[in-house]
């Protein structure tokens, strides 16, 4: 609590500093403005601009070799492992016969794309992913908001709760997938199945393999959702809490004076003023959820379902399925093109959804 107070006090100081900085720079702006007012001739102005540019160029000439030294290590790594792959993946997706062992590009064509888009497994993967996104993202955001508001309205133990809610963030995602697989064990003695047994229900085949039984679709999605919410809450609560503590207390005091009901305070003050944070969280968690892969692998194993069934295959899982075939089977060397095409389709999909989201939010977000 004390830290927060300190920050609040200092904010005023720092804005003062910014104000003084603005004052310092404003004379320069004035000069520029008077230039315009004086209405120098076109050529005089050009000459002046050129001079200024040359002065800047001199600065640049002095600095560019230093910049080169500083940027070189990072840029070399980025060029080899980020820029080059992006270009090459894009190119490969248009060459269906690309062979990674010999690095030969085959004939140009859109075959990889048509193969991917007509593949039933691809659409199942997309459907699974969309279902996971649609269920888990809104739920986790709502829960995170509720917890944040509750956390913000208490004083005692706030720090303790904050730490507890943050704990899932500092865990190995794979490891805790295994923990959830244990909690949702298909056996009668699994924790959840025992709880169901207490209320007289039958044990459910949540995860894992059982002879003569398959995982019901809803059960798998349920486990994935619970795990995704558990895993994602920590970050959301942290961001929302720092946002909510930045809201001016006067709004709440004004609401109190008017004796506004609590739910109206929540929907008319807290949510609108948190909307930048909510938008940020929505976009990042949408992107994250569309790329979910490792959580499903840790819950259901590499096959992402019952044995070879691939019931819960995700979009990224689909890409890797092809990619794994590339590296393991002799025939698979040419499958890389298809994996690249699937990756690009997924990227475009994420991009579209993000843009729609941003467009929708640009009308609602209050900055």
């Amino acid at each position, binding site marked *: 609590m004390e*830290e927060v107070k300190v*920050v609040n006090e*200092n904010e005023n*100081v720092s804005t003062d*500093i910014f104000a003084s900085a603005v004052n310092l720079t404003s004379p320069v702006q004035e000069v520029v403005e008077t230039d315009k007012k004086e209405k120098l001739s076109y050529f005089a102005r050009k000459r002046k601009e050129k001079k200024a540019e040359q002065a800047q160029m001199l600065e*640049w000439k002095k600095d*560019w070799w*230093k*910049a080169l*030294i500083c*940027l070189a*290590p*990072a840029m070399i*790594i*980025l060029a*080899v492992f*980020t820029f080059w*792959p*992006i270009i090459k993946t894009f190119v*490969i997706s248009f060459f269906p016969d690309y062979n*990674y062992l010999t690095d030969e590009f085959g004939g140009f064509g859109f075959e990889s794309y048509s193969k991917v888009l007509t593949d039933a497994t691809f659409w199942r993967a997309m459907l699974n992913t969309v279902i996971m996104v649609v269920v888990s993202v809104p739920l986790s955001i709502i829960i995170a908001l509720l917890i944040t508001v*509750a956390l913000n*309205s*208490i004083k005692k133990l706030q720090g303790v*709760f904050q*730490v*507890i*809610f943050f*704990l899932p*963030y*500092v*865990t190995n*995602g*794979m490891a*805790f997938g*295994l*923990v959830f697989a*244990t909690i949702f064990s298909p056996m009668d*003695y699994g924790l959840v199945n025992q709880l169901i*047994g207490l209320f007289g229900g039958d044990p459910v085949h949540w*995860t894992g393999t059982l002879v003569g039984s398959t995982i019901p679709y809803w059960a798998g999605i349920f486990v994935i959702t619970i795990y995704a919410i*558990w895993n994602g*809450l920590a970050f959301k609560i942290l961001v929302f809490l720092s946002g909510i503590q930045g809201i001016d207390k006067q709004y709440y005091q004004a609401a109190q004076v008017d004796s506004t009901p609590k739910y109206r305070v929540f929907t008319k003050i807290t949510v609108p003023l948190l909307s*930048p944070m909510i938008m940020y969280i929505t*976009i990042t968690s949408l992107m*994250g959820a569309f*790329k979910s892969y*490792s959580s499903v*692998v840790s819950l259901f*194993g590499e096959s992402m379902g019952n044995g070879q069934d691939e019931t819960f295959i995700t979009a990224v899982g689909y*890409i*890797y399925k092809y*990619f794994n075939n590339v*590296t393991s089977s002799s025939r698979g060397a040419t499958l*890389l093109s298809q994996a*690249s095409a699937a*990756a690009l389709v*997924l*990227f475009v999909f994420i991009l579209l959804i993000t*843009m729609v989201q941003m467009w929708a939010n640009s009308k609602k977000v209050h900055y």
Partner: protein
Amino acid sequence: MDSELLTNTINSNTSSIDLANVTNLMSEASHSDVSVEENISKVLTKEERKERRAQAREQKKKAALQSKQELYFENDAQAKRYQRARHVKLGFIYAFLVLCALLTLIPFYWMINTSLKTYDELIRIPATFFPENPVFENYVTAFTTENGLLLRYIGNTLLVAVLTMLLSVVTTTLAAFAFARLEFKGRELLFSLLLATMMIPGEMMIMTNFTTVASLGGLDSYWALIIPFGTSVFYMFFLRQNFKQIPNELYYAAKVDGNSDFKYFFRVMIPIARPALITVIILSMIGSWNAYLWPRTVSQGDEMKLITDGLLSLFSTDMGGDTSNIRMAATTIVSIPLLLAFAFFKKYIMRGVSRSGIKG
């Protein structure tokens, strides 16, 4: 278009970051004042100190009273009713929070609980919530499975994590310095180009990176695990924001004193941006500890795996017979280093995460 959108969103976030950082600097400055005060208080006698503490307590009481007096009540009954309503409300809030906290903690608890059980106790119905006779046998089994490969994986991961961290700290601080302080043509263009790459999913790069590494003969080698993660656009962005907040006056002062840019970088920038550097170090280490896809792709032999992939391959669910207790022991072993790191660097981790939004 999309890069612009991205930078816009990031900038909208950073405006608050900027303020927070400046206040950090300020609070550090005020810390030094506190220490001065402490030194003064050492000079005071015991009684004087007691007196001061009593005064502080009284002031606190007064403040509490004042905050209560802001509310106006017609009579005592109304005040009591208000108090009761407040208590009930607080009770609900605490109950809700405790419930959520319990749900958050259950996986941790169940992991440790299961790891201490014998097989007989594991399959017992009803389940025991505390192991009747806790055994550490499962931990021994976890460590000795396949000639102690788990220990080797932990070693691999630590080595890779430390080297990746060192490399990425060097490359990103240098690059962030260039972007924050040096003037060169195309600086803003290059930087927004880098930010745009943050939008592109890493899955797209892994395939070509695999062929690159394979053609360089890097499969099953340490460098293939380290170099691709030796830099990060996000850390660059994060550090640049920090460097930019250091007032220009310091730079000019250093210049007037005849110091070179690099001396300024090492003597002024790095010490001031130390908290940000620590955050980068910790986030990078956590990232390596959690990395899964790339290590899995590049390390195909048993010896060179990292911990996450190794955990799955050693203790996968398809082993036949229920070995949950051993698996949970291994999971506990893998989780403890991260939780320890969190216990020691709570402040830096939470600060870094609230400003970033990445998970390794």
